């Protein structure tokens, strides 16, 4: 296992280097001058030239890349062009909030999604099945953005049970977590259902039933455990994407997370902030995938890594 982990981590290095190169180049070829965005509508040519020089925008591309890569290796993501604050500090401030939201959404999604999936597989064609199917169609088809606004209108404006937006205690967490987790509920329910249907028709389930095991043991221990692999895959991918910034949800609910940070950075052409965030988020994504791999082994003892 340790050897496997070490190898996977090593493999992440070229991936991240690739990300570094791509991010760097993408912004270089993108139209729009960061200095123009920095100084706003009006500034004299002298100021613009000075800033271009200060930001090393006049240096040849490879030199700029070298400077950047060197600093990153030293753990320095640079300072924002716009705010002059260190990017690493900005990320440290925002990422825990994104993590909090992602975890809550994931908790909601996995409890709801897996339960719905299991119930509908156990009684295919029954009312839970049809409900789950309906719910997952809705969940997949409606944009997060729209659902989020409806949630706000109902729970914040009409009922006044929960705040419409912002960050604070659990009250602020409920609506964004529901909105964000909804798509995953839908996916998870469908994946769980099909995996469970397959598992429930397997020989070992028949054997378990034959030996007189209670139904919840048959479904919960024998079938579900075997059906978990594809579920973990979906969980891993969704969690990874939540962590890398659920931009729409964070925007609608004014959640001060990494998604809004990166959108702001893009809008203001804040090159170092974009680069630093994307790099950090790629690292996060690689890490979450690694966690999913470990979870496979935990769920299914037949999978082992050497």
């Amino acid at each position, binding site marked *: 296992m340790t050897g496997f982990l070490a190898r996977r981590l090593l493999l992440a290095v070229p991936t991240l280097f690739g990300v570094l190169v791509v991010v760097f180049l993408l912004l270089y070829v993108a139209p729009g001058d960061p200095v123009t965005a920095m100084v706003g509508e009006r500034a004299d040519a002298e100021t613009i030239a000075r800033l271009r020089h200060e930001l090393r925008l006049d240096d040849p591309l490879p030199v700029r890349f070298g400077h950047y890569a060197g600093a990153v290796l030293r753990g320095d993501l640079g300072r924002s062009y716009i705010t002059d604050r260190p990017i690493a500090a900005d990320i440290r401030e925002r990422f825990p909030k994104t993590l909090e939201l992602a975890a809550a959404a994931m908790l909601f999604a996995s409890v709801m999604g897996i339960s719905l999936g299991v119930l509908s597989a156990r009684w295919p064609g029954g009312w839970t099945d049809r409900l789950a199917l309906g719910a997952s169609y809705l969940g997949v088809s409606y944009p997060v953005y729209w659902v989020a606004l*409806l949630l706000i209108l109902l729970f914040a404006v009409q009922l006044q049970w929960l705040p419409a937006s912002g960050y604070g205690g659990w009250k602020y967490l409920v609506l964004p977590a529901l909105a964000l987790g909804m798509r995953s509920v839908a996916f998870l329910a469908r994946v769980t259902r099909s995996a469970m249907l397959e598992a429930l028709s397997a020989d070992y389930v028949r054997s378990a039933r034959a030996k007189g095991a209670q139904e919840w043991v048959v479904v919960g221990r024998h079938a579900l455990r075997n059906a978990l692999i594809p579920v973990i895959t979906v969980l891993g991918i969704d969690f990874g994407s939540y962590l890398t910034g659920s931009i729409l949800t964070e925007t609608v609910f004014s959640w001060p997370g990494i998604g809004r940070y990166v959108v702001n950075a893009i809008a203001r052409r804040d090159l170092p902030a974009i680069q630093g965030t994307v790099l950090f988020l790629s690292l996060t994504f690689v890490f979450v995938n690694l966690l999913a791999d470990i979870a496979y082994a935990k769920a299914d003892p037949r999978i082992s890594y050497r």
Partner: protein
Amino acid sequence: MRRVASYLMVFVAAAGGCDDRSAPSRRTITDSRDNYDPRSLDPALSTDVPTGRAVAYVFDGLTRFTPDAKVEPGLAERWELLPGAAPAYRFHLRQGVQFHDGTPFTAQHVVSSWERALNPATKGGRAEPLQPILGARDFAAGRAKSIRGLRIVDDSTLTVALEQPLGIFPKLLAMPVASVVLPNLDPARPVGTGPWRFVEWKHDDYLLFAKNDSYWAGAPPADSLRARIIAEPSTAVAEFESGAVDLLLVPANDTKRWEVGGDAVMMSVPALQLVYVGINATRGPLKDARVRRAINLAIDRREIVDRLISGRGRLAAGVIPPTLGGADTARAPYPFDVTTARKLLAEAGFANGIDVELWVGSNPVYVRIAEAIQGYLTAAKIRAKIVQRESAAAREAARNGVADMILKDWYADYPDAENFLYPLLHSANKGVGGNVSFFADAGFDRLMSQARAEPNEGNRNVLYRQADSIAFDQAPMVFLFFYNELYAVQPWLTGFTPPVIFNGQRWLTANLEGGRRKEEGSR
């Protein structure tokens, strides 16, 4: 299924009425206008509206703006233009003013603040308001150790010599970048002399301020002030409807619903914002003023304002907003007259029409306006191709002179006609300076130079009006409209005056009336 759908409809419809709101129990005025995190609370870095607004809460300049955009004394009690050949002002500073940490304010702080703002190490990039000071450019470029034009007479007297006469200089000092700070300013914990003390800043979430009890102009009546940062306009609307915020800038596409009314007090205020189409007067057929006039005549502005921005605009007949001195409010905008437009085109030798590119940024409202303009122009045989780019890229193309026409807007930094006429149309500002029309007219330039040097406001306004009239006649742009901001104010928020300029409203008279009931607190 049908029932679910009808429930959803009910929610959506219910959002329209804002019934059953009672005054909040909180004692903190809550603002919802900022839609992105301020850049910094360092005045030297202030280039955007959220930053400028927050800076005006914590800091003071020598002068300041009132909500209706008049300049009034700030840290300077009064000032006078000194007699003599060289243009210089003497500022008499307020005595007994203290920073929030108790440091007494002196003339030295003014000098060190301005040096700091001009110092390239501060990475401000927007110290233009201070550049008219004699020696400021040398200092900014590192050619001088201090600013030659500044002289401290005593703790409460400062003389400021200018490079050239500039009548609007006192106005420039009300801009955020000219604010007075302590020399060791920490942008994470800013300390100023302003009406509000900084308490905390949760990035992308809110800024919190507490009243400065010893403010020289009297402490604000409310205890504290929270500026929420709400990215999505619909969310801000929901927050307002749930009573969680006290003030809302009504989004343009939501106007009709609010005009119907409800509990909220609606206030409309002309923003110092011109929406226009810059016509590059150096490109092809656009060199001919008749062609540019034809373009102006071919567009139905009234219809654009009514249909695309819910009537929230005043048609422009020149570049000076009607609320500012110098505006010729009697001048009629270009009429919608396709026949004359075609005739003018034919006279200019383009009977078969012309082909132009119309650039526009990513603002969806502006994209729709551009499409409408394209439609109108087609009827006058002006075939406009829309080129849509990300806003910074579109702006850059226009500055580099590669765009025939560009639909954009211009906000005032300071409330003076000069801030429209000079950057947008003076030949010294071609391209990067803001003159994307690349307009160069000797008569216009002469009037503007005269106006800038003229210390008397009345005389200055006469010159502005003449310059504006030249611009109107030469039509280096399509004069579209001046935008009106629409505010919704909760019935329990009193003493709020909507500002014409972004940093003109500092909550100096506003308060929440805690116990007031809904029945009494209607419009």
